[in-house]
């Protein structure tokens, strides 16, 4: 029933990924190079126009996919790592450990997280690394909560008790018995984390917290903000691509998780 979502999502995301990987082959121009007159509206040679310096917008968008996808994927992986570890330990062992970890997680949920990301990135000065790091630090709580609740349910499942009564160690019960069964919803949320991370990166870049040595969609939109009334193509096209990327990931995640719970959407995403 949700397979069309997976289909559409996968195809869209696939195209965007291919675009990111093959960027140097696909892009008509060097995205950084001044390749034409500034602020040229879309035409035959500059399909999506040029920006304030005369750089090709299309080329920038194609290369920008790299930053978005890398930040999205790496942050989602890191946050999934933190979230799974915290959630699994809390859910499996329960008791005081659980209470402490739940408090810890709550704390990160309570923090107005986007402000926190801005703060971190500004402190560490914007770079691919600092942006990824900051995003990972704030988007993990939903994963942790989900993993914890999955573990709370799964650990009382009889197959887990069966594994324990077969003499498996805690570690292998967690990793080999419970975790694989907790993965489907985690995968769904994890893929939403990718979307959240991409949106957060774009929001940061939009506000000017971007790595100036990289072209990213948010940066393109943000730096075009002063001229967006006249040179609409500078904000509209990169935004559209950003939107499609997030949409494709969301579709994919919905398809994967089906009964997707909106509460699992990351905290920092906008």
């Amino acid at each position, binding site marked *: 029933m949700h397979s069309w979502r997976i289909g559409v999502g996968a195809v869209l995301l696939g195209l965007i990924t291919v675009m990111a990987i093959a960027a140097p082959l696909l892009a008509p121009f060097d995205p950084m190079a001044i390749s034409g007159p500034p602020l040229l509206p879309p035409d035959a040679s500059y399909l999506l126009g040029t920006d*304030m*310096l005369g750089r090709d917008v299309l080329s920038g968008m194609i290369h920008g996919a790299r930053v978005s996808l890398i930040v999205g994927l790496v942050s989602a992986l890191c946050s999934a790592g933190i979230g799974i570890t915290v959630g699994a330990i809390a859910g499996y062992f329960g008791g005081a450990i659980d209470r402490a970890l739940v408090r810890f997680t709550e704390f990160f949920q309570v923090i107005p997280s986007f402000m926190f990301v801005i703060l971190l990135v*500004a402190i560490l*000065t914007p770079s691919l690394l600092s942006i990824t790091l900051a995003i990972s630090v704030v988007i993990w709580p939903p994963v942790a909560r989900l993993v914890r609740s999955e573990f709370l349910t799964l650990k009382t499942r009889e197959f887990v008790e069966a594994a324990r009564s077969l003499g498996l160690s805690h570690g292998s019960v967690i990793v080999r018995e419970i975790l694989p069964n907790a993965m489907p919803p985690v995968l769904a949320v994890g893929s939403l984390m990718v979307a959240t991370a991409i949106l957060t990166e774009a929001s940061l870049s939009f506000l000017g917290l971007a790595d100036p040595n990289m072209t990213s969609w948010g940066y393109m939109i943000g730096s075009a903000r002063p001229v967006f009334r006249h040179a609409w193509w500078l904000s509209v096209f990169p935004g559209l691509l950003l939107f499609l990327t997030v949409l494709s990931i969301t579709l994919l995640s919905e398809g994967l998780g089906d009964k997707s719970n909106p509460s699992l959407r990351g905290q920092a995403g906008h």
Partner: protein
Amino acid sequence: MKSLMSFALAIFMGMASLAMAEEAPRRGGTLQSVLWPEPPGIMTGIYTQSSALLPTTKIFESLLTYDFNLNPHPNLAESWEISPDGLKYTFKLRENVRWHDGEAFTADDVVFTYGDYLIEVHPRARAVFERAQVSKLDDHTVVFELKEPFAPLIRSFDLCCLIVPEHLYKGTDFRKNPNNLAPIGTGPFKFDEWKRGEYIHLARNDDYWRDGLPYLDDIYYRFVPDAASRALALETGQMHIATQNDLELFDVDRLSKLPHLDVTTKGWEWGSPIVWIEMNLRKEPFSDKRFRQAMMYALDQNYFRDVIFQGYAKVATGPVHSASPFYEPDVPAYRQDLKKAEALLDEMGLKPDADGKRTTIKLLGLPYGEMWNRSAEYTRQALRKVGIEVILEPSDPAGWATRTRNWDFEMTMYFLTTMGDPALGVSRTFLSDNRKQGVLFTNHAGYANPEVDALFNKAAVSVDEEERKQLYSQVQKILVDDAAVLWLVELVWPTVYNKKLHNVVTGASGPNSSFADAWLAE
């Protein structure tokens, strides 16, 4: 025939009345002015951000004002005299001036301001006025006495150095004085209200010392954070004036074509800002003059002027602004020439590798907005063409300032106000004894040239205008040949205003003048 006559007469009369309306200032009206960013405060001396100056200069006044050629004119000082040895400046003050709270303005206020207040709160003013001993001859006469001549002094009584009321500030903690929130000055407008996040309201000073002035009833300085919105507000007539960086330059271009708006680029002669890239000369390869020259040849100053600054700039040829009386046009020129640049680099032994890369350097960009980002991005692209790979270092205002003043950079881009007289604004970047680590806008690059030091020092104490010109001319030739910094452009800040608004930019302070004679047509 008769009817034709009367028709012609009617036209003539009509034109005459139109001309009358153009010429006769109207009393009344509310000026709506854009102000961005919202300044932290508007007490003169304490808050010197450019956005604080607009309201501050309406409330406070100085002894003198300056015309476009930086010639001094009387203001709170009726007249003045400079002794022939250039050591003694005597100012005769106006007698009918009152502070906004009704107290009389006297020599005590002047002595307090230049001898006490500014010395404590305003570092740049301190640099000038510490050279002088200020004293009161009588209630309306003050004397500035110098130990050695300092010709720029007569050009120093402006924006930074407005006079504050001694009776409210003497003996208080200047920074925490409650009057800072509702400043009391002598200017044509009084502080009325500050609605945080929205506007500052100034009201007409009915007791202003120039009879019948000011014309305007009110000034609203409205904080409009979005450049596009500022442009729109001017376009729709909601706002009457915007200046400096308020507008994106391509907006200025568009607005200037609208029938109800006018643009002037005058009024910044006093500041004379120059955009440049400073290199850390302590480091390789910047220590090599050929490398610096190569970069000059690699950069296209016209591109900065035409694309990045949208024509609102002039190509800078050297350290002294072309509006300055000390400007020397006859200096070595660096027209963009990639061949020459490459030849210089080759000569240095910086050969391109397989990717065409000769060396990698870092540029610390100025975090003041898109125009500066674009400048840095263009610099990267331009230098890449000759095999110099540039990594842009992101920063924030604090980070930029910290790294720059602590010499923690390879290249740093910024603009410096050269302030008309080189002794005030130019020499500070090149004097070897001004290599003060930790202090911003000093000689961060570490430039040291005894010849340059000697010329600058001599010019600063000379009282002979011609001699000074001569000395500065020599300095400019040396510095330009040395490519001591990479001069890019002179900033030309546009002031866009509604044609209903008259007498906007009348002197070197431009929109930062008192607006006593500004008036709004119906």
